[in-house]
C-alpha cells in the first residue's frame, strides 16, 4: 500500500512537470492560430486565423530569408563541427601521448572562458578582415568547442582498438580507418554531437546580433526578437513567428532523440 502511494506520488510529480513543460508550447501553437485579442483574452482553443497571421507576418518580415540564413548557419556549423571535433577527439585517444594530454587540458580551459569575454575582440577581428555581416563570421567561432572534442574523446574509449590494428594489417591508411571504420561505428556519438551543435547554432542569438549589423541579414531568433520590439505587438503573428523559429530544432530533436540519449550515456561512463 505504501509503495503504491509512493508510486502514485512519482506519477503525480511527473504529470505536473510534464504539464508545466508542455503548456507554454501548446500556448504558442494555439496562439499562432488566433487573433491578438483572442490571445490576450486567453483563448486556449485553436482558431481560424492561421492564414491571416501568416499573411501579416510575411508582409511585415522577410521570413524566407531569415529561415534560409538560420538553416545555412545551423547546417554549416554542424557539418564543420562534426568533422573537425570528431577527428580531434579520435586523435586524442587513438594516438594518445603525453604532449596531447597536456594540450587537451589546455583546450578544456577554454570551456571556462565566457563568450562575453571574447566577443568584443572577435568582433574587431572579423571587422578587420571585412567579414562583418557574413554568415561565415557567425559560423567560424562555433565550429570547434572543447565540449564536443571531450564528447568524442570519451566515447572513443569504448571503441575497440583491435579494430584499428586489424585495419592497419589490411593496409588501410590512417585517414581511411577513421572515415570507414570509426565514423560508421560511432553513429550514436555523432547524433548526440550533431543535435547539440544544430540546436546551439540555430538558437544562438547574441553573436549573430553582434556580427550581423545590417538589417537585411538576420536569423530567425533575431527576426522574432525584432518583431516583439515594436510599439504594438500582434501576439497572434508573434506566436506564429516563434513557432516557425522553434519547429526545426524540435523536429531534429524528435527524430534523433534516442541516438542523442545513447550518445550522452556513452560519453559519461
Amino acid at each position, binding site marked *: 500500500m505504501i509503495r503504491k502511494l509512493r508510486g502514485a506520488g512519482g506519477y503525480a510529480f511527473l504529470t505536473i512537470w510534464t504539464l508545466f513543460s508542455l503548456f507554454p508550447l501548446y500556448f504558442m501553437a494555439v496562439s499562432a492560430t488566433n487573433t491578438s485579442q483572442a490571445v490576450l483574452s486567453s483563448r486556449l482553443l485553436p482558431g481560424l486565423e492561421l492564414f491571416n497571421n501568416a499573411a501579416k507576418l510575411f508582409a511585415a518580415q522577410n521570413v524566407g530569408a531569415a529561415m534560409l540564413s538560420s538553416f545555412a548557419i545551423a547546417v554549416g556549423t554542424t557539418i564543420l563541427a562534426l568533422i573537425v571535433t570528431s577527428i580531434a577527439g579520435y*586523435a586524442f585517444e587513438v594516438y594518445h601521448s603525453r604532449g596531447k594530454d597536456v594540450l587537451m587540458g589546455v583546450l578544456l580551459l577554454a570551456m571556462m572562458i565566457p563568450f562575453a569575454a571574447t566577443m568584443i575582440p572577435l568582433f574587431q577581428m572579423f571587422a578587420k578582415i571585412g567579414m562583418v555581416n557574413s554568415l561565415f563570421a557567425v559560423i567560424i567561432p562555433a565550429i570547434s568547442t572543447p565540449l564536443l572534442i571531450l564528447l568524442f574523446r570519451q566515447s572513443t574509449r569504448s571503441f575497440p582498438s583491435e579494430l584499428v590494428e586489424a585495419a592497419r594489417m589490411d593496409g588501410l591508411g590512417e585517414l581511411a580507418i577513421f572515415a570507414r571504420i570509426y565514423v560508421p561505428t560511432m553513429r550514436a556519438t555523432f547524433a548526440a554531437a550533431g543535435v547539440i551543435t544544430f540546436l546551439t547554432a540555430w538558437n544562438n542569438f547574441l553573436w549573430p546580433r553582434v556580427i550581423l549589423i545590417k538589417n537585411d541579414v538576420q536569423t530567425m531568433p533575431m527576426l522574432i526578437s525584432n518583431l516583439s520590439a515594436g510599439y504594438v505587438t500582434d501576439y497572434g503573428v508573434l506566436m506564429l513567428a516563434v513557432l516557425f523559429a522553434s519547429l526545426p530544432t524540435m523536429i531534429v530533436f524528435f527524430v534523433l532523440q534516442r541516438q542523442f540519449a545513447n550518445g550522452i550515456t556513452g560519453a559519461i561512463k
Partner: protein
Amino acid sequence: MDRRLNLTGWGFLLPAALLIVIVSFVPMIQAFILSLQTGRGTRLTFADPLWYNYQRLLGDEIFKQTLLNTFIYLIIQVPIMLVLAMILASLLNNPRLKWKGFWRTAIFLPAAVSLVSYSLVFRTMFANDGFVNDAIGIFGVEPVNWLGEPNTARFVLILGLLWRWTGYNMIFFLAGLQNIDSSTIEAARIDGANAWQTFWRVTVPQLRPIIVLTAIMSTNGTLQLFDESWNLTKGGPAYASMTMSHYLYEISFQRNPNFGYGAALSYVILILVAILAFIQLKVGDKRD
C-alpha cells in the same frame, strides 16, 4: 608509439586546436589589453591609471545592480533546478515506470526551443492583460504587473530558466544513473533504508561527478545570461532584472560603444566564472 603515427595524430587534432586558440585564447588576451584602454569606437589609448576602467566599474550603480541580479538568479535558480532535475531523473530511472519515453521527451522538449522563442512566449503569457493574470483572476486574485515590478520580473525570469533548463540537466543525471551499479541501491534497500534515504545516501554521492559537471555548466550559463534579459524582461523595470551580459552588450554595441569599458566588465565575468568553477571543483572533489 611510432613517430609517423604520433605525427598523424597531431595532424588530426591541429584544425580543432588552432580554431580554439584563434576564437578563444587570442581574443581573451586581446580583451584584457582592451580593458586597460579608453576611448570611443576605434580610437583607443591606454588609460591613466591603467586600471581606470576597473575603478570606474566599482562606482557604477548599474553594474552593481546587474551583478546583484545575476547572483540572485544563480543562487535561487541553479540549486532548485539541479534538485528537480535529479528527482525527475531518478523517477525516470525506475525500471517499473510506465510511458518512460513519453515523460522523457515531454520533459526534455523545452531544451529544444530557442531562448528567444521561450522568452517571447513567457512575455506573452505574463503580459498585463495576458493568460497568467486571467488564470489567477479565476481564483479572485488581483492582476499582477509581472514584468513591471522588480521582484516579479525576476521571478518570471527564474521560472523561465527552470522551464528551459531542468529537462536538459535531467538528461545528464539520467545518463549518470544508468552507469550506477544497481546492486549498491539493492544493498541499501536490504539494509532497511527507505527510498528517500537510499536516494540521498547512496544515489546522490555516486552522482557527484555529474552534479559538479551540471553545476559548473549552469553557473557558467547563468553568469552569461543575455537572451532572457533582452527579450523576456528587456532588463526592466529600469535595470531591475538586467544581467551582466546584457549590460555588457549595451556598453559595447549600443549608442556610444565603449569597447575598453565593456572589456573590463567582460573580465569581471571571466574572473567570476573561474573562481566559482574552482570552488565547485574543490567542493566536488572532497571525499567522505
